């Protein structure tokens, strides 16, 4: 019965219109929209990756081999199993045009390439025509970035290794670009046949071959994978198929998306404060109605239900607006996003992320409105006869507290589950909650301090400041909602700012002057002596280090499958560089065991990087089996040594005695330390002398990484700005809600003789105090969050970044000031007689 009555009351109250709920709806809708939009974009990309899995991979399945082509037997198996096979070889090299040279990731293809999708060229032409070349020269197509850097145009000649090519077109779109992960240089595509004379595919050089297979419909990819495993030698072979064409990329997209959803949840929390304030203001206004209803015999339950129904209706409306926005904005921006994205994306209305956003919105609304709703119960009929301004703080009855806590657990739990980033979600939630509490304490402290300061004898006579302090500290103060909403928004921004600046400085700092200028790969055995002489004789080269290098996969530890023993350690993921050396390399410190004697020629021995060995649980005397170019070598661990991977110098996890590896075909790597001014000349000199070697500029590589990080930081900053925007709406809501009270106050003050300047200053001081309080907490909390991320996630040392901190405090003060003053105009302009008469 009470439900029916409640619904009737709710309907009558809502008939009055939604004018008072603009802030409520805006906060909720914005929060839901942000989450829905991020989720929709993520889902669009994931759907695209899934649907285009074969295109991205380049085939229904791919068999990847390292440093070798498939044997005749292997190729025969593939031709037999698949309806079509395409062979691709992929390696790093230098593209050379006269004096200019640039690092490039070369792809050698056969006539069958691409099995799926098309290569887009400028000028438009079929790939086969482009690769056929002209005037007897083989053709090449190249990423426009590199074309511009080399100052060439289609028709010009270029060299890769010892082989000359003619540039036929710019490469606009490579269908399988995302599948290979992030290459080190811009792409060049040539025909593999044309590489025969380049000297780049010699035994021991670093290249990969990928055999893309196309199958008929209805193929069981799992069974085919098993068949390949049985038929082909397992070592050095990697199987991938379209079920997950670009595992690296899709994981990255999923992570970044999940992280942005977390930022969106922070925005929803900020919006929640606005929602809560709106409900509180609404119910305060309804005190008389509630008291009257109670006088007329309405039960507490009926009244609670009546207002709960109203809030539920409004919540539904807010979520619906948010979902529409969150679904439509990505659709509207789809062409723009697609142009920026090197990935296929299928933009559509994806129900999954929308449902997720709706769930968060509903939970957040419930959490933030239950408390103020509970106050509706506590209104006594006597309130009709007393001023409500000084309503005492009262805890709601315990069931409300329990339900609020439960809802919070459900919200955090579902976010953790749905984002797949459990730890990060829990930590973020804990951080947000802590920031919330600190801000609550700060709001409380601001009020108390202001109230006390207003009483201070020192301030007597400084009427404007005292009045401002008095109203910040007095009953009906806006401190709570303003400090909380703005503070939380600024906290998220401050944290992002601190993390971003620390990330940047970590890159700059951890790349000290001791990092080499160039990393050189593919130095052949017979080139090594001459290479070293040339490099060392150069006056501007301070140091050259070199080491032989092979690559291999650790397959077994003490006769057991390696992963079964040491788990999913990064050392076991894919192949690792392996070196050999008669004596411990200079600078390396043997921490345990002994290095083999210089003339040792017994059973293979290995020295393992100490930290990684400890993580993997290896001890001296353990046997590890390494597959090098298809051959298994079992070696005993006889020493551990410290290896520093952070300086970009030469560092190997595995170093063996020379006798164990010397026989295998291999190349050498080198690091060159030189003046930055000499780098360009060195690149030309060494490149010209040794056409087959590849010089990787460390500075370039780092810039690429830094550029990628900057992109991520930008995405996160946009997320944080959305949070701040919600904070602003809450702020404006608070300022607007307080306008009537301020108008009244201004009228009285004018009656008592205050000029408009005095009143304006009074309002400005108040706003500045709120902004300052919010800004200070934001900087402190953001600093702590920044420290936690830098310390625990990035494993790097934290340095407080003052510029963004100062900007945030100033921004906080300026924002509250603007919002406060924006809503001061009407109070100041109103004529006292009109205002006072209206509230007679």
């Amino acid at each position, binding site marked *: 019965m009470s439900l029916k009555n409640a619904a009737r009351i709710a309907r009558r109250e809502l008939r009055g219109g939604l004018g008072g709920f603009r802030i409520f709806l805006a906060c909720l809708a914005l929060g839901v929209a942000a989450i829905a939009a991020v989720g929709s974009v993520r889902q669009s990309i994931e759907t695209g990756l899934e649907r285009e899995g074969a295109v991205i991979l380049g085939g229904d399945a791919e068999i990847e081999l390292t440093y070798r082509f498939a044997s005749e037997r292997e190729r025969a198996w593939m031709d037999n199993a698949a309806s079509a096979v395409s062979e691709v070889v992929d390696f790093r090299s230098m593209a050379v045009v006269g004096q200019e040279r640039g690092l490039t990731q070369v792809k050698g293809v056969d006539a069958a390439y691409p099995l799926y999708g098309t290569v887009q060229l400028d000028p438009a032409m079929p790939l086969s025509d482009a690769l056929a070349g002209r005037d007897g020269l083989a053709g090449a197509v190249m990423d426009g970035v590199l074309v511009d850097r080399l100052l060439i145009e289609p028709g010009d000649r270029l060299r890769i290794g010892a082989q000359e090519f003619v540039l036929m077109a710019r490469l606009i779109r490579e269908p399988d670009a995302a599948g290979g992960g992030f290459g080190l240089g811009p792409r060049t595509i040539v025909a593999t046949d044309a590489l025969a004379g380049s000297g780049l595919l010699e035994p021991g050089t670093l290249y990969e071959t990928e055999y893309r297979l196309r199958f008929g419909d209805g193929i069981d990819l799992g069974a085919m994978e098993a068949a390949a495993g049985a038929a082909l030698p397992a070592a050095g072979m990697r199987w991938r198929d379209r079920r997950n064409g670009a595992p690296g990329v899709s994981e990255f997209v999923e992570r970044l998306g999940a992280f942005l959803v977390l930022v969106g949840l922070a925005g929803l929390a900020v919006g929640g404060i606005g929602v809560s304030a709106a409900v509180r203001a609404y119910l305060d206004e309804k005190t008389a109605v509630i008291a009257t209803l109670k006088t007329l015999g309405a039960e507490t339950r009926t009244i609670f239900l009546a207002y709960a129904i109203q809030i539920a209706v409004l919540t539904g409306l807010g979520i619906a607006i948010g979902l529409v926005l969150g679904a439509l904005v990505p659709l509207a921006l789809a062409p723009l996003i697609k142009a920026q994205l090197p990935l296929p994306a299928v933009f559509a209305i994806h129900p999954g992320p929308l449902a997720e956003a709706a769930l968060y919105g509903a939970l957040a609304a419930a959490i933030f409105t239950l408390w103020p709703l509970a106050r509706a119960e506590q209104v006594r009929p006597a309130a009709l006869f007393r001023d409500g301004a000084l309503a005492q703080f009262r805890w709601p009855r315990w069931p409300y507290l329990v339900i609020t806590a439960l809802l919070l657990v459900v919200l955090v739990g579902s976010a953790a589950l749905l984002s797949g980033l459990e730890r990060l979600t829990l930590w973020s939630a804990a951080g947000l909650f802590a920031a919330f509490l600190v801000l609550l304490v700060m709001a409380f402290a601001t009020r108390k301090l202001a109230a006390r300061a207003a009483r201070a004898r020192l301030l007597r006579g400084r009427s404007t400041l005292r009045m401002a302090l*008095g109203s910040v500290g007095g009953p009906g103060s806006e401190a709570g909602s303003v400090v909380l909403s703005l503070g939380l928004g600024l906290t998220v921004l401050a944290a992002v700012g601190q993390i971003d600046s620390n990330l940047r400085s970590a890159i700059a700092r951890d790349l000290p002057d001791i990092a080499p200028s160039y990393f050189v790969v593919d130095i052949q055995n017979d080139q090594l002596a001459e290479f070293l002489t040339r490099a060392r004789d150069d006056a501007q080269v301070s140091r050259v280090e070199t080491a032989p290098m092979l690559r291999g996969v650790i397959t077994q530890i003490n006769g057991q499958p390696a992963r079964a023993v040491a788990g999913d350690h990064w050392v076991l993921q894919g192949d690792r560089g392996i070196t050999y050396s008669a004596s411990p390399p200079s600078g390396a410190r043997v921490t345990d065991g002994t290095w083999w004697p210089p003339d040792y020629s017994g059973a293979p021995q290995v020295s393992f990087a100490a930290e990684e060995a400890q993580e993997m649980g290896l001890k001296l005397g353990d046997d590890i089996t390494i597959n090098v170019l298809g051959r298994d070598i079992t070696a005993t661990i006889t020493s551990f040594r410290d290896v520093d991977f952070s300086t970009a110098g030469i560092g190997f996890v595995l170093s063996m005695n020379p006798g164990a590896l010397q026989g295998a075909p291999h190349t050498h790597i080198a690091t060159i330390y030189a003046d930055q001014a000499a780098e360009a000349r060195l690149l030309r000199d060494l490149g010209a002398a040794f056409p087959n070697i590849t010089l990787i500029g460390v500075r370039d590589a780092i810039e690429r990484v830094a550029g990628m990080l900057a992109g991520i930081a930008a995405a996160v900053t946009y997320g944080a700005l959305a949070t701040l925007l919600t904070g602003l709406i809450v702020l404006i809501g608070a300022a607007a809600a307080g306008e009537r009270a301020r108008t009244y106050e201004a009228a009285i003050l004018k009656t008592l003789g205050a000029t408009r300047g005095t009143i304006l200053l009074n309002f400005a001081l108040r706003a500045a105090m709120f902004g300052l309080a919010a800004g200070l907490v934001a900087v402190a909390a953001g600093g702590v969050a920044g420290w936690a991320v830098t310390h625990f996630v990035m494993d790097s040392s934290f340095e407080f970044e003052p510029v963004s901190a100062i900007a945030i405090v100033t921004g906080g003060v300026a924002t509250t000031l603007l919002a406060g003053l924006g809503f001061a105009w009407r109070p100041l302009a109103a004529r006292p007689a009109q205002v006072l008469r209206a509230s007679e």
Partner: protein
Amino acid sequence: MTDPVISLNDVRLSLDGNAGRVDILRGITLDVARGETLGLVGPSGSGKSSLLMLMGGLERATGGRVSVLGHDLTAMGEDALARFRRHHMGVVFQSFHLIATMTALENVATPLELAGVGDAFQRAEAELAAMGLADRAGHYPAQLSGGEQQRVALARAAVSHPDILLADEPTGNLDGTTGQSIMDLLFGLRDRYGSTLVLVTHAPDLAARCDRVVHLVDGALAAADARDAAE
């Protein structure tokens, strides 16, 4: 009548209401002498409050001249009016109009502070004590009864020893006994500071305590009063 403190000359007030322009005051000419207590009576809606607001510079006349203590209020800007009020006028309203975010003491001290008086709080305390509210100084308006609130409002209006006290039905929201004591306090203030008092009231016994009473009917002075004023 020599040296009027308040002098109204053909004062008119029209306001734009929902139903178009309303003529609220239609040409009022009236002088109030120094130290005089003037009662303003008339039916509800006749324009008493509006007239009082005009005298206090809280409303701007749309015609005629309002002059107070020799200053032409109609020619003064809003801030000038505020400064003028802080030194010369105290206003008391039917519904008190205390600032809810200030304690009783702060409410009373505010006009003095605005005037830049050094010992604002001591004087405010003394004024509150004179109203019998010494022990209520730290209370917020919502913590005070109606009578107490009106006594705070009286203290606030009187604390700067104004030349003119304007009171708009100051007992209208109070019961008889409380109203009586408020009225005693108000007349006491007038006597103590020698202020001129203009009092809007519905109560005949209060009107009887005034030196002179004018009747307002439909925005104009009643015939007899108009004749008196013209003398």
